[in-house]
């Protein structure tokens, strides 16, 4: 479709496509949208490393490939190590990495492959300082294996191994703060992003390209299948996650914190607004909701303080 010049000028999202129709993602999948934005931001000269996750399937079974980029599929826990090896090889071969015109090496892993089994390799990648970008698309459970809890699953969520039931066997721990673990490595650039705010996401991807060293982006990525949510509500849910401060957007750049909220003056909306659109939270009691709300506000205050002191 030809985009009129008047509209083109206002677009900050590149019009070119490197993620094609015919992929096998579920309806309303945040991850497929996220990967599409990654390739829009980075273009064709991108090597994407995909561990075991939904994207293994989304990218297409052999001999098909939904993406117009070079893919290397790898084992679950190895994303950080494989992107390290690729970066080292490109450097050994004298091929420019990162920067405006260099090859982008991208790790694209889910929350299970990042927060759990892949945490060690992620840590190694970060502390060694490789020139690559690691994106954790966070759908808050092991969606590819059928909705089992990960350490990124939020408090009170139903999953197939925290099913609730009469014993109220729901997730009892708050979401692991992977980005805090990443920042503890003193990386040059780390950020949160959301598929509901693509301009912000693409800006962050482009920033990650410019800043030398390892970058990390945690992308909030709804999963209607696992979240028991309507397929046309993914963006709304992702937007509410930000508006309730459940998943605030911020950046950490060379020691400085910066909050990037769409309406910075507004107080966070009540957490119920985020919860009520998703079947996974329907087993929560009043007390559970209050508990989660208290955690969200505490973490939000903490982040505001960090941005105030280290802004």
């Amino acid at each position: 479709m030809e985009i009129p010049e008047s509209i083109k000028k206002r677009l900050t999202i590149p019009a070119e496509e490197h993620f094609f129709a015919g992929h096998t993602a579920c309806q309303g999948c945040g991850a497929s949208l996220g990967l599409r934005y990654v390739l829009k931001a980075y273009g064709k000269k991108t090597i994407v490393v995909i561990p075991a996750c939904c994207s293994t399937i989304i990218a297409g079974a052999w001999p098909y490939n939904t993406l117009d980029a070079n893919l290397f599929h790898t084992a679950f826990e190895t994303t950080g190590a494989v992107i390290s090896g690729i970066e080292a090889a490109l450097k050994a071969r004298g091929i420019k990495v990162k920067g405006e015109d260099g090859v982008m090496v991208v790790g694209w892993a889910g929350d299970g492959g990042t927060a759990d089994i892949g945490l060690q390799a992620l840590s190694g990648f970060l502390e060694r300082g490789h020139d690559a970008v690691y994106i954790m698309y966070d759908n808050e459970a092991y969606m590819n294996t059928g909705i089992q809890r990960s350490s990124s699953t939020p408090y009170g969520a139903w999953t197939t191994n925290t099913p609730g039931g009469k014993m109220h066997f729901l997730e009892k721990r708050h979401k692991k703060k992977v980005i805090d673990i990443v920042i503890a490595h003193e990386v040059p650039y780390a950020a949160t992003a959301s598929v509901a705010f693509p301009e912000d996401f693409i800006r962050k991807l482009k920033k990650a390209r410019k800043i030398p060293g390892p970058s990390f982006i945690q992308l909030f990525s709804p999963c209607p299948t696992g979240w028991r949510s309507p397929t046309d509500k993914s963006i709304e849910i992702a937007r509410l996650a930000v508006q309730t401060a459940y998943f605030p957007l911020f950046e950490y750049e060379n020691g400085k914190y910066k909050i990037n909220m769409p309406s910075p003056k507004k107080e966070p909306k009540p957490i119920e607004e985020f919860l009520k659109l998703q079947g996974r939270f329907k087993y929560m009691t009043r007390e559970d909701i209050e508990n989660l709300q208290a955690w969200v506000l505490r973490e939000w205050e903490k982040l505001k303080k960090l941005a105030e002191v280290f802004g």
Partner: protein
Amino acid sequence: MAEYKPIRKVVSGNYAAAYAVKHARVQVVAAYPITPQTSIIEKIAEFIANGEADIQYVPVESEHSAMAASIGASAAGARAFTATSAQGLALMHEMLHWASGARLPVVMVNVNRAMAPPWSVWDDQTDSLAQRDTGWMQFYAENNQEVYDGVLMSFKVAETVNVPAMVIESAFILSHTYDVVEMIPQELVDEFLPPRKPLYDLADFSRAISVGALATPNDYYEFRYKLAKAMEDAKKVIKDVGKEFGERFGRDYSEMIEKGYVDDADFVFMGMGSLMGTVKEAVDLLRKEGYKVGYAKVRWFRPFPKEELLEIAESVKGIAVLDRNFSFGQEGILFNEAKGVLYNTSARPIMKNYIVGLGGRDFTVPDVKAIAEDMKRVIEAGKLDREVEWYHLKR
């Protein structure tokens, strides 16, 4: 072609490996320390620090990541190397399959060390043999010279057939023991081993490629067949490369099984790695004492040299298989493999399995002589008393 004048250096097995890595112009080394492998990666780091080697060195956080990073590097077109031992190799296990499945010619040195518990840092082949079915080629070095030569040849073979290769040396017996090694001048190594031409290149963006993607039951089977075929093809490549190595540098490796005194031997000792140095020494002495014995040193365990084994089996009455390893619930691994090869043939020598030297227990010339006595008795009796003998057992 420049004239070959070897450079003689007194080095440990590990340093021999490190020199070979330097001479092979490896581009990426990703490694994690483990005794007794560490001095390989230390020496490589020293080469880099001295400006003697231009290598991207990735000091990873585990052996699993060492293999994963080597795989990434190899997929992105570089010549990649790593080294490990025992528990470290076991931790790599999953990724060994990934390297062969993605057809990446990574080369590694594994220093044979016993698996724990109980903790042991000494020689034992069970670590590498437990990786038998990962789709890696395996070369067992008898001495430091073979470690050096093995690394150079392995890169050439691996990059020809696009299958990864493991060069295996004994803990301490080779890794930390100094010996004269004839090294090859750099320009001659360069002639023998030109820069790698990758099967595919992640840095080529002229068309989008997807490596390691899901394959349905409709395709997976053919992927496996192609790997099986590549391993089979590797036999000829190994022999050709071994022959070329001999022609260029005077050390012939065209046989996958190195043989001695086989033609007129009643029985031969068969085994792998450094213990065969002891066997060869013992066989020379036994021959002088009138024993009609020979030896068959299996250099390449994968691909397995079936044809060469059959030839040996047809000419002898017995084979004493020495295994510095054990497959629990069964028998020594080489013994098991060798018996399997001969089942559908007319060759039926008496085969007895001697389990020796596990966990670094000394294996000496008198031990070989004692086994020769036992084997002689077995052949004279024409039947086995027991199939597997735990030779050193303190009864």
